[in-house]
């Protein structure tokens, strides 16, 4: 590995003068010779963009991010490997804490000024400024310890992390330069307030300086954003045949705040890329394509979504009959065996989903542990385990009771706004009834539900039995539930999503075991070794069932025939696809005429 890195380093050093970044041929289905340049990609966004200022933007997707080239590193959508992007090469110190980057020569801002090491220092200075209060502020810390960025010379940036941590790679892909010559004079004269008042949505596009392949041409409030090609981007970004990128002349982002109106725009052929988000919309797109009303490509069930749904029990203590029962892994295993995940996929998700067994979202195919489905749907197995727990007799109402006369009954809560979760809850209720377990369902407001999950002020027992909820997002470099989900003590600073136990004490050995493994994985830069650790964590999870996972929805992508340059099918997933552009790199996208 080290030798390979050295060879790669030597090669890049050898050709370091004005070496552009070359997009690998594997990132698109098209050969460079087929490509036609020019044209406009028409896409759609669900809301009006609110600012052009990267430091005050709180929305997602946001325009500043779409007009930025990227960071010092990039992540390959095909191999998941990290590669130097705005750096021509880099070295990592022996303790894995210090990264030294050679800034790629020949990079320019959209106004023609060179991009230098200073621009990363500016970015660091402004993002980590408390008074500016940017959304990126927290990413400059790992466990409350700051990341330090400094300039070695005009071509070299040094980033020092407080500890060896693989999330450093993710940070570095998101660590983008900001134009020093634009922001620093304002910061020096007017301070944080000055920065916050810059680049509003009505600022003249000529004053907006960006690094990315597209820059703002004009913004029509409530209607659309028009982006045009940044002429300087092609000087340092080439396709595999050496042609300057991007291929497109412009991008049109239409603001259509209503999901049904978006579908209409795609069916009318007014937009080029679209992601149907439910069965009805998918069916309409398919019908229109089958009837040749629109010519295009539809990829249903491209991959799972990066989100989960699970049931969590209240295991704060073992003082009552119920909390004692919930704290027993055998009960949770039995519960997992009455969860009919296939029925959930078929009935609730209309076949557009897949069963899940661990906290790793199914879209991370390479990370899923085998054998995690040990407690899959198996009512006979559930009955056997419940018998072992002492529930051997059924009362006259058909509900199991133990020797002390305790009924096997509890309430499952989920949020009233979410039809999918309510469907899941109903299926659980039906299957539970068959084995003699009475599940009462209760649908309440989301905020009320999260209030119930939050820790009490003195970490006393919370007042619920079981809640059906989910998580979204997370890390791509180590896609295991993070510290706020697994930490069981010191909860004031984290572990706010450690939903099954908010007593601020680690009650079970598996909790500590998981935490230790997790931090070991975070310090492991070797991908295979990290995956092995993730496997271990998932095996504990599958055995202990702290969160009984249910099923995950899938994503679907559609685009018109004129839109070309998408990822190869195997790389199309919710992780690689862009919210606005779909499963493709915008710089390699082209329009067929």
């Amino acid at each position, binding site marked *: 590995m080290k030798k390979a890195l050295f060879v790669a380093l030597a090669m890049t050093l050898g050709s370091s003068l004005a070496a552009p970044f070359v997009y690998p041929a594997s990132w698109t289905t098209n050969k460079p010779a087929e490509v036609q340049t020019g044209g406009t990609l028409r896409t759609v966004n669900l*809301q009006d963009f*609110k600012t052009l200022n990267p430091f005050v933007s*709180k929305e997602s997707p946001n325009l500043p991010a779409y007009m930025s080239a990227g960071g010092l590193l990039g992540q390959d959508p095909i191999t998941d490997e990290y590669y130097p992007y705005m750096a021509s090469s880099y070295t990592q110190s022996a303790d894995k804490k210090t990264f030294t980057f050679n800034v790629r020569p020949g990079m320019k801002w959209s106004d023609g000024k060179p991009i230098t090491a200073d621009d990363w220092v500016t970015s660091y200075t402004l993002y980590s400024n408390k008074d500016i*209060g940017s959304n990126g502020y927290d990413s400059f810390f790992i466990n409350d310890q700051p990341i330090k960025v400094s300039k070695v010379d005009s071509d070299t940036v040094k980033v020092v992390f407080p500890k060896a941590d693989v999330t450093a790679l993710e940070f570095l892909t998101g660590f983008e330069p900001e134009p020093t010559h634009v922001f620093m004079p304002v910061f020096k004269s007017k301070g944080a307030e000055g920065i916050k008042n810059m680049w509003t949505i*009505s600022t003249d596009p000529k004053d907006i300086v960006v690094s990315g392949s597209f820059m703002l041409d*004009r913004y029509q409030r409530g*209607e659309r954003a028009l982006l045009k090609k940044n002429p300087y981007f092609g000087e340092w970004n080439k396709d595999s045949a050496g042609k300057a990128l991007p291929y497109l002349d412009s991008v049109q982002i239409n603001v259509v705040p209503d999901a049904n*109106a978006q579908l209409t725009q795609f*069916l009318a052929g007014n937009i080029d890329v679209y992601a149907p988000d439910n069965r009805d919309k998918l069916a309409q797109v398919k019908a229109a394509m089958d009837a040749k009303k629109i010519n295009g490509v539809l990829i249903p069930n491209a991959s799972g979504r990066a989100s989960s749904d699970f049931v969590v029990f209240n295991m704060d203590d073992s003082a009552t009959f119920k909390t004692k029962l919930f704290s027993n892994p055998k009960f949770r295993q039995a519960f997992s065996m009455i969860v009919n995940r296939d029925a959930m996929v078929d009935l609730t998700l209309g076949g557009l989903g897949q069963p899940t067994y661990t906290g790793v979202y199914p879209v991370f195919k390479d990370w899923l542990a085998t054998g995690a489905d040990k407690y899959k749907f198996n009512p006979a197995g559930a009955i056997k385990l419940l018998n072992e727990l002492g529930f051997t007799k059924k009362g006259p109402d058909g509900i199991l009771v133990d020797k002390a006369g305790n009924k096997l009954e509890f309430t499952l809560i989920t949020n009233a706004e979410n039809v999918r979760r309510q469907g899941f809850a109903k299926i659980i209720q039906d299957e539970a009834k068959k084995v003699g377990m009475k599940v009462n369902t209760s649908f309440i407001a989301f905020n009320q539900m999260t209030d119930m999950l939050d820790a009490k002020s003195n970490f006393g027992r919370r007042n619920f039995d079981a809640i059906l909820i989910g998580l979204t997002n997370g890390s791509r470099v180590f896609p295991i539930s993070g510290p706020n989900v697994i930490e069981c003590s010191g909860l004031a600073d984290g572990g706010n999503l450690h939903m099954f136990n908010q007593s601020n004490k680690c009650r079970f050995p598996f909790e500590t075991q998981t935490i230790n493994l997790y931090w070991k994985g975070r310090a492991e830069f070797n991908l295979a070794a990290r995956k092995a650790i993730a496997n271990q964590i998932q095996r504990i999870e599958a055995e202990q069932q702290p969160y009984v996972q249910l099923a995950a929805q899938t994503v679907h992508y559609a685009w018109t025939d004129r839109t070309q340059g998408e990822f190869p099918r195997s790389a199309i997933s919710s992780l690689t696809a862009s919210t606005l552009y779909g499963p493709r790199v915008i710089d390699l996208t082209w329009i067929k005429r």
Partner: protein
Amino acid sequence: MLPYIFRRVLQFIPTFLLATLLAFFIVQLAPGDFLSQLKENPSVRPETVERLRREFGLDQPIIVQYFYWLKNFLTGNLGQSFQYKRPVTEVIGGPFVNSLILVLIGTILHYVVSIPIGVYSAVRPYSTGDKLFTFFSYIFLGIPSFFFALLVIWGMLKLQQNFGWDMPLGNKTSSKLPADLPWWRSAWDVFIHALAPSIILVLRGISSESRFLRGQTMEVLGQDYVRTARAKGVSENKVVYKHALRTALIPLIAGLGGLLPALIGGAGFLEVVFNWPGLTPLNLTALYNQDIYILQAVTAISTLLYLLGNLVSDLLLSVIDPRIRYH
């Protein structure tokens, strides 16, 4: 007349105060004010919350807060939008004008279409034309406008798919036209896009108003002075349009005051369905994000419009009805 207008404007003050005060209370009654939301947002620091607190006096009782807001309102400061990080005046301008476009086209259509239909139906009651108008009136009165809008969009979509006609399928301007256009071309583009929502917006109004006018005109046409006019040999057109219609229109004019705000409110669903960047979509997003000063500004402006509309309709009444004189 002028002293009358002056007195009326003076009377605005208590009405406006009461209406905005009520709105302010109701907005504040909603669970969780925007500050509690800000406190949970890690990217908003306590100092910022404190600064906002002081700026709008939010540490004060609600009634005092209301006067802070009023003071700011009177100096033209509508507060700061939290989503846009810009003054509300700047954020609300564009959507307000957009809503006004729909309402203006709608109002003109409303009168231009309903008055001739009403008169026609009154002059030729129970004719085939009258029956046809009655039939359509009941349909348009019965069908909810947003649902009708969806049907229209579906119809336009089918036309575009099957015949390749470029239909104005929502939004304010066409995405297919180049960005730099002569002003008349852009204005035409906006008009074309505004047409469908404006028509649907007033279909209901036209239906009820033309029925109403039909009844009024028929009643007036049967009165003594009309018979006298006819007996004097006044031409039929003059009888209908000068004598009868003028009297029949009085209740219609009286209703004008409520029309402006009602149309702005009513344009709401249609703005959402037709993806028209007007006040309602802005207001809905503001509600969702608890962007309180946008909500309050929209309420205040609607109230002002309502008051102004009433004044205008009263003045018009004095022009049209010889029995009314203002002093």
